[in-house]
């Protein structure tokens, strides 16, 4: 009996010590991040740590499908190929090429994007029906991507400089522990006032993002699942589920396996290459 009492006491002490360690500002620096008394610096450091896990990935090829469901339960699918090239300039965004496969009537349409951090992205689109490349001049990245609940800004390259950050708290997220950070877009034409993101404290991958619209009310929740690691280093989520809380529409975005170091170069990301895709 005295033994079990001792065990209980021991458990109590351990719990207390652990909770103090997790919540104490002095000890929080132990995770290598700025302390909780500096929420902005801590939030930025989390974003940088997250960004660092992707540094040097070079180029990737993958495919994705999107399954769109409206409040009525009607379903529609989209498929496209997605190539990216890492921009070695840390002050600029990555380059991407999307080649649309489904629906059939847009098959062969391709879109080239040079992402920028605080300026409008540069975009060109090749339209096979017109056999021409069109430059799109628009500041908008906030509209629905192919009618889905994703905006272009939701899954285009996430550069650190696109947002200001503020760490909110650390908390359990499923079986993991996450840093909860508030991000505010610095891009003037963003569709959001802020997002709250949950970043795993160990692998620094984002597990969930909650979006707040321009009147700062809850708009969407994005959850990331099925993380797989490539080349022992780069994590990619393969299931992204977006729930729109206002319209009750949802979009499931599934990435196929990624291929890394496929030999893509800047030559594959210019206006001439747009016409060559298929």
């Amino acid at each position, binding site marked *: 009996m005295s033994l079990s009492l001792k065990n209980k006491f021991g458990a109590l002490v351990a719990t207390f010590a652990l909770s103090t360690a997790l919540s104490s500002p002095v000890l929080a620096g132990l995770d290598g991040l700025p302390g909780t008394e500096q929420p902005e610096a801590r939030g930025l450091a989390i974003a940088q740590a997250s960004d660092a896990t992707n540094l040097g990935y070079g180029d990737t090829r993958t495919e994705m499908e999107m399954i*769109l469901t409206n409040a009525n339960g009607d*379903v529609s699918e989209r498929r496209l190929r997605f190539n990216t090239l890492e921009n070695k300039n840390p002050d600029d965004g990555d380059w991407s090429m999307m080649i649309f496969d489904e629906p059939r*009537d847009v098959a062969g349409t391709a*879109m080239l994007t040079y992402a920028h951090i605080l300026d409008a992205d540069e975009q060109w689109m090749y*339209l096979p029906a017109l056999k021409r490349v069109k*430059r799109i001049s628009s*500041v908008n990245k906030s509209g629905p*991507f192919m009618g889905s609940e994703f905006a272009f800004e939701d899954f285009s390259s996430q550069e650190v400089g696109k947002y200001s950050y503020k760490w909110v708290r650390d908390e359990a997220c499923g079986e993991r522990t996450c840093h909860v950070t508030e991000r505010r877009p610095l891009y003037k034409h963003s569709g959001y006032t802020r997002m709250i993101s949950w970043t795993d404290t160990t692998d620094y991958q984002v597990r969930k993002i909650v979006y707040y*619209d321009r*009147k700062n009310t809850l708009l969407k929740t994005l959850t990331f699942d099925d993380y797989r690691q490539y080349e022992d280093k780069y994590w990619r989520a393969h299931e992204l589920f977006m729930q729109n809380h206002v319209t009750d529409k949802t979009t499931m975005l599934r990435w196929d396996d990624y291929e890394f170091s496929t030999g893509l170069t800047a030559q594959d990301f210019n206006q001439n290459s747009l016409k060559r895709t298929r």
Partner: protein
Amino acid sequence: MPLSMERYGAFVTNNPIKVIVASLLVAVIALLGAQNLRLTNDYRYFFTKENPYLTAFQELERTYSSPDTLLFVYQPKDGSKAVSREALNLAYDLTEGGWQIPYSTRVDSITNFQNTRAIGEDDLEVRSLLDDPATLDDTQMQYIEQTIVNEPLLIGRLLSHDRHTASVLMSMRPPVDDVVANNQIISEARSLLAAMRAKYPNIRIELTGSQMLSNAFSEAAQNDLATLTPLMFALITVVLIVTTRKIAGTLASMLVVTLSAAAAMGSAGWLGIPISPPASSAPTIILTVAVADCVHILISALVSRGQGMDKKQAIIESLKINTQPVFLTSVTTAIGLFSLNFSDSPPYRDLGTIAGVGALYAWFFAMTIFPALLSLLPMKASNVVDRQSRMMSWIAEKVISRRKPLLIGMVAVTVFGIAMLPRLTFNDRFVDYFDARMDFRVASDWASDNLTGIYILNYSMESGEAGAIANPEYLATLDKFAGWLRTQPEVKHVASFADVIKRINRSMNGDRENFYAVPTSRDMGAQYLLLYEMSLPYGLDLNDQLNVDKSASRLIVTLRNLGTQEMTSLRARSLSWLKANAPEEMWVDASGQAVMFAFIGERNLRSMVFGTFIAFVLISACLMLALRSLRLGLISLIPNMAPPAAAMGFFAIFQNEVGFWTAFVSATAIGLIVDATVHILSKYRYARIDLQYSSVNAVRYSFATVGTALWVSSLILIIGFLVLTHSPFLINVMLGLVVALTIFVALILDFLLLPPLLIAVDSRGEDPSEGDVAMSQPAE
């Protein structure tokens, strides 16, 4: 029954305090439910889940986006254009403000219109018409005006053809059935309106839209509860004092009617019934019904007191002779009101339930707390009542002596009224439900006169398969249909997806006018669309016009304020145009709030004809049972059935367009008018069978005993329903007016047709000269 009633009467008069406490306890328990009461401010509540127009509307809502709107309409007061620098600044501010209103999902204005423009041959620019008003120069202003005027998506909708009036349209998506959320929207929208009016004093700005319609319903309900109920209260008090000249009896009656109305509203809370404008007229109706019970008991007691009985005896006597008729009239009133539950419109089911329950509470309190109070309060004999009895005897003599011409004349008038019934046609226009006291009506009429309205038809145009909205044939048909609709006199604006794709096609081809046409292949249309959609900002996407697999697009037709007939005609013409010119999958019918309200009358009439019939059968069965006479029961059908029909017919002489309130007139009135027949026939039967009077003397007897109570209670009923005509909600006004008219007709028929009829069919084998014998000498 009389013996047990005598014992009950003795108990009540000997233990008044106990009875008062017990009945107050019942009232308090019922009233506790009042804390659950809530006002509904959703116009959808007027429709049942089975209503096909609501189903179509909800399907549309789920497939595209929410069709609920806030519509700001503005016009410079000095007669300048609504695209002046100041007006453009207002449009910009309203657009920004609109995004901040809770639950707004989209804001459309002339400033945030996503204009496409070709720059050179291969650049496509997509941007708001006006990004930043600070940099606005004259060239840009000219460009903006030219673009709007030439854009079918804008002109006639966001800017009037004369360019003097413009609008900003906000799409709203509040959580369903959330009163707080809706109130939040209204208060934010109104503060934006106030702020804009203050900032732009030279521009007239009005606010309408379906959110404001919803709100108008709840404001009308609040107004009715806050003004009509107290007014009714005051009027009842005056009528009671004037007719009985008794302060104590009046006070006791007022307590009974108050308790009945309060207990019924409390019970509505317990039952979870939301208060809508129709339901908000329930307290007024209950006050009216309840006071009739008190009048009968009070006047009988006063008559007995006048005949020399002491107070206790008079009360016991009154209970004895009134228990059965008061119970019967309460039950028949409740049956009539409950039959409103057959309605296709839930607010009228609620009205029926609340008022029906109220009628039963009224009976309960009239039989308990009322006699108990009377026995505690002073009661002297009254000569007023006595004088009124003598007047009744005089009327009885006149009716008896002229019974033949009266019989023929009254039948002729009634038949004439009924013959007018076919003149009636339904015409429901929901904006016109509200009178000019309500901002919503003023704003909506002004908006409709100057630019656009809130009568909107939606066509979900199917293309047959996923993605096929980009088919040139589909787009061409859609464009032709839109073009045809634009030539219809009812149509103010048509927003068609074909116009979107034509504009993109032009911009993809260097903005050359000859490319303002649908693209030549499906792939081309689909690819243009992909590109265009990729360039739109949050909230200005095409999801409100295209369904998820792009197999259908939504055609939005704005109409001037239409009634049911015009709506029926436009829908029929549209459908036959589609059948003649479009493939079968495009043969769709329109949906929307305007359609739902346009056909609310027909659907309710159909359901209420059945409901009223059931009520009628039940009420007549009650009468036959209570009177224990098939013959009297059959005779009662005439004065009960004729008044609603004749009253509606008389009404049709003056106005032949009616709203859906017509469906509820008979059901509401039947339970009330039957009361008078019950009182007359039960006294008549008592005189004929128990007292062995001849039919003529039995008529005299019934006039003398219940005549006064009858005309007093009918007067109160008429006043009560006339009070409803002060509602700003037209449906309540008309229902009140015509029910009052029905009760008036019923009173006339009860006094002038029923007695001659009784004598005519119930006097076989009697000496025809007997009519001249005075009543004090019993027949035989």
